[in-house]
């Protein structure tokens, strides 16, 4: 630390009080991103404090990265510079909640599970079934752009976010949208903040539309000998009038992932062995409704599964259903905890291309003897996971080659592929954000408008933004 930065903690302490500044390197390890530690962490409780901090950082040319529960900081490229960890967890108030209007506004640092509990008291919920559910903050969930199993029916955050308030890279508080469920006043700036990894602004408040809790629900599970048949089932369901709540396909081998110690903590009620498929592909779909609707779903799904060549089928309810849902939601943390060098490719293709994209991906992994496991959402999102056992140079080369080819194959299909999660040491070789994007120049323009000096989360996002 040079002399100028030596005074940073005390300057920050002037803003938030000394007890909310951490400069002890040992404690700062908890805020590390890709092995890079900040020189200080600061925990504001007020938006005005954030404004001060950002203005100070800008003047001193310090880089700020906002952090929530720190569960998804590994997404993206290593930061180019990282001086201040802006710990958002004290900004955790519920600003307003109008159950009768099904709208709420909350500060970014509020944990998702806490918000869910409040909503639950009013028989409502937020369809943001994001991984690390028990810890993650809403700000972190939105900024990291992760999805969840409920997107099948409810879409993603962009579909139920009503507005946002944030602090730009110049320390200006700005907002867009509003609190009502329908609104076209001004630009929808909050949409570009979703998944931007904090590169456009520090999210301080988020307004959501909430939803009535589902009537009783179940999950249908069936297994198939081949990927094509499992995808056939997905296609069959999407051509019908059924409107399932979730729809996923899992590869053989997911049972290993789901039977670890970590998994049993997330999902205490184990799911019967035969349902987890062994060597088979698993199709699973949650549905909800009144007893008549439930019966209809079960009937129709069983019939469709049979027509599509299912080996067996079952319906989960109660604690088993909850466990199955938690496993779907927590697929990413489970995969990452399963092996030290786990590398997850996030692929999106048109729904009818799932089988083709996956065939290409599995071919690349298998020809290099890389173990893999897959979760594919029915909407066309694929989490292709290479479970590399160790982060050796040789393994790295294999993973790089495989993933490069998979990226190309997906691009050829007109899809997208990135590598949000992989060992830090591999990030300079893997194409973390996939092939260059045609609309990159338009993204740069946006970045400049929000954060002209590039002090917010520098270097982590697409193209090194």
């Amino acid at each position, binding site marked *: 630390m040079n002399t100028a930065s030596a005074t940073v903690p005390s300057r920050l302490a002037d803003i938030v009080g000394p007890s909310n500044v951490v400069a002890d390197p040992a404690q700062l390890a908890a805020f590390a991103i890709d092995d890079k530690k900040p020189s200080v962490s600061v925990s504001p409780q007020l938006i005005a404090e954030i404004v001060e901090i950002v203005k100070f950082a800008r003047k001193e040319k310090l880089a700020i990265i906002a952090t929530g529960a720190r569960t998804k900081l590994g997404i993206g490229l290593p930061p180019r510079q990282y001086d201040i960890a802006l710990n958002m967890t004290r900004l955790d108030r519920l600003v307003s909640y109008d159950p009768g209007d099904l709208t709420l506004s909350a500060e970014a640092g509020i944990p998702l599970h806490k918000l869910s509990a409040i909503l639950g008291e009013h028989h409502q919920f937020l369809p943001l079934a994001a991984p690390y559910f028990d810890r993650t903050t809403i700000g972190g969930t939105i900024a990291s752009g992760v999805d969840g199993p409920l997107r099948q029916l409810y879409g993603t955050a962009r579909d139920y976010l009503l507005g946002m308030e944030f602090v730009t890279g110049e320390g*200006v508080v700005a*907002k867009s949208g509003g609190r*009502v*469920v329908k*609104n076209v006043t001004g630009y929808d700036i909050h949409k570009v903040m979703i998944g931007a990894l904090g590169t456009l602004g520090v999210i301080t408040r988020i307004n959501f539309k909430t939803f009535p809790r589902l009537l009783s629900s179940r999950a249908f599970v069936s297994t198939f000998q081949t990927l094509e048949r499992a995808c056939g089932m997905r296609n069959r369901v999407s051509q019908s009038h059924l409107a399932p709540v979730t729809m996923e396909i899992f590869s053989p081998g997911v049972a290993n992932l789901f039977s670890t110690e970590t998994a049993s903590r997330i999902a205490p009620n184990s799911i019967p062995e035969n349902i987890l498929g062994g060597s088979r592909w698993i199709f699973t779909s949650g549905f909800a*409704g009144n007893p008549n*609707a439930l019966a209809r779903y079960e009937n129709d799904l069983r019939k469709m599964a049979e027509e599509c060549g299912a080996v067996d089928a079952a319906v989960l309810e109660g604690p088993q259903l909850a466990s199955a849902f938690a496993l779907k939601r927590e697929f990413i943390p489970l995969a990452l905890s399963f092996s030290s060098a786990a590398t997850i490719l996030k692929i999106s293709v048109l729904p009818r291309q799932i089988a083709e994209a996956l065939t290409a991906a599995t071919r690349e992994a298998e020809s290099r003897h890389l173990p893999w496991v897959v979760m594919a959402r029915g909407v066309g999102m694929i989490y292709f996971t290479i479970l590399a056992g160790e982060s050796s140079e040789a393994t790295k080369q294999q993973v790089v080659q495989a993933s490069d080819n998979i990226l190309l194959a997906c691009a050829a299909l007109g899809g997208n592929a990135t590598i949000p999660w992989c060992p830090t040491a591999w990030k300079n070789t893997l194409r973390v954000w996939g092939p260059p994007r045609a609309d990159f120049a338009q*993204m740069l323009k946006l970045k400049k408008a929000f954060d002209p000096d590039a002090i917010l989360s520098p270097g982590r996002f697409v193209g090194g933004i």
Partner: protein
Amino acid sequence: MDSHAINDLKKLLGADAVLHRPEELLLYEYDGSVEVARPNCVVFPRHTKEVVGIVQIANRYQIPMIGRGAGTGLSGGALARQGGVLVVFSRMNRILEIDVENQCAVVQPGVVNADLSVAVAQTGLHFAPDPSSQKASTIGGNVSENSGGPHTLAYGVTTNHVHSLEAVLPTGELVRLGSPALDSPGYDLPGLFVGSEGTLALVTEITVKLTRLPETVKTLLAIFDTVDDATETVVDITARGITPAACEMLDGWTIRAVEAYVHAGFPVDCAAVLLLEVDGLREAAEQHAEEVADVCRLHHAREVRVARDARERDLLWKGRKNAFGAVGRLSPTYYVQDGVIPRTKLPQTLRRINEIGEKYGFEIGNIFHAGDGNLHPIILFDAREEKQFQRAVASADEIIGFCIEMGGSITGEHGVGMEKDRLMPLLFTEDDMNLMRRVRDAYNPVGLLNPGKIFPDTKGCGEIHVRPLPVAGASRA
């Protein structure tokens, strides 16, 4: 406008695709709003390349350009506030691709909303955004305004149904934003450009999502003797977490106007009706419909009718969707507002609107998307009297002021345009607006595209060729 510019445009597009004589321009002074502004010239590109060429010419001569679909917009979005070239997309009206299996379609911006749904109806799909103007308005216009419709309540607005865009930036760059596959890496640029009211780019191609038509549709008409009962019903339906596919309200005055024109079968002696629709699986929709009917009865509905067949259902919807036309027969001019309020505040807001009407001595009809809290008070006035227009605007401002007081917004679906720019500061701080202006300037650096819209400023304003002289609204410019 420079005659060289007109010549260049003619050379690019052919003489039949360029209008510039005053009598030819008359029609393009208007859109669906009460605003008026005349362009200097109107052009009709046939494909994207021509749009790029138009933008290049506009840049060469530094003339404003304004996109236009069907001109049904209700906030003056498609008017040449500062003159310039109006780029009308009516000839770019081809459906380029329909992908039934992946439930998406690629369309040119001039495709009329309803035409897409008709084109895919046989496959059991439809384009879900259904503005009441859907038989005329274009998908390009829908995208620019982020339009909603009666079924927005369950299906979402236009932005929820757009995957990606091809667009020509005001600088002449041709760009593709987003991708047909979900979660395109990087900033959600389609999310930003949809709803930007034609101020960021001219949209030349749109990839939209197609939605499966429901198995069962139940349409109910609940008839009330007081407006309060109707609004309380909406509050209760919302609070119970019953989300109908649509929940529209028409008050007594509007019903009588509609009946005289459409004969939809609305009872002319009631105070309000709710037009409710539930859909989905047979098993769910039937129970849902009963629940909705029960809530209506709980709040003293005089009668709850259920449409027996498609014909009855269509008739009810015809009444709803032609309401503005019906109103137009009664008054030389009307002014539709578009405020939004939290649904819990519906009863007091409708009471307040009524009081405001009495205070100003105007008839104010209400026909609106009640389930979304999206009001459309229709203020009837005579535009030939300047004073009346001013009073109409004053009463509208009072209504909007009340919406904001309730925690609402100034526009739910019609856009800010040149009609509500002066109201923006009621919702947004100077800092909020400055950031939005910066975003605009990032893509529209000289302000040549659709100048004078959304923001209460004059930045990017070129020479003012035509004074925006409204029917009766000079005082508002």
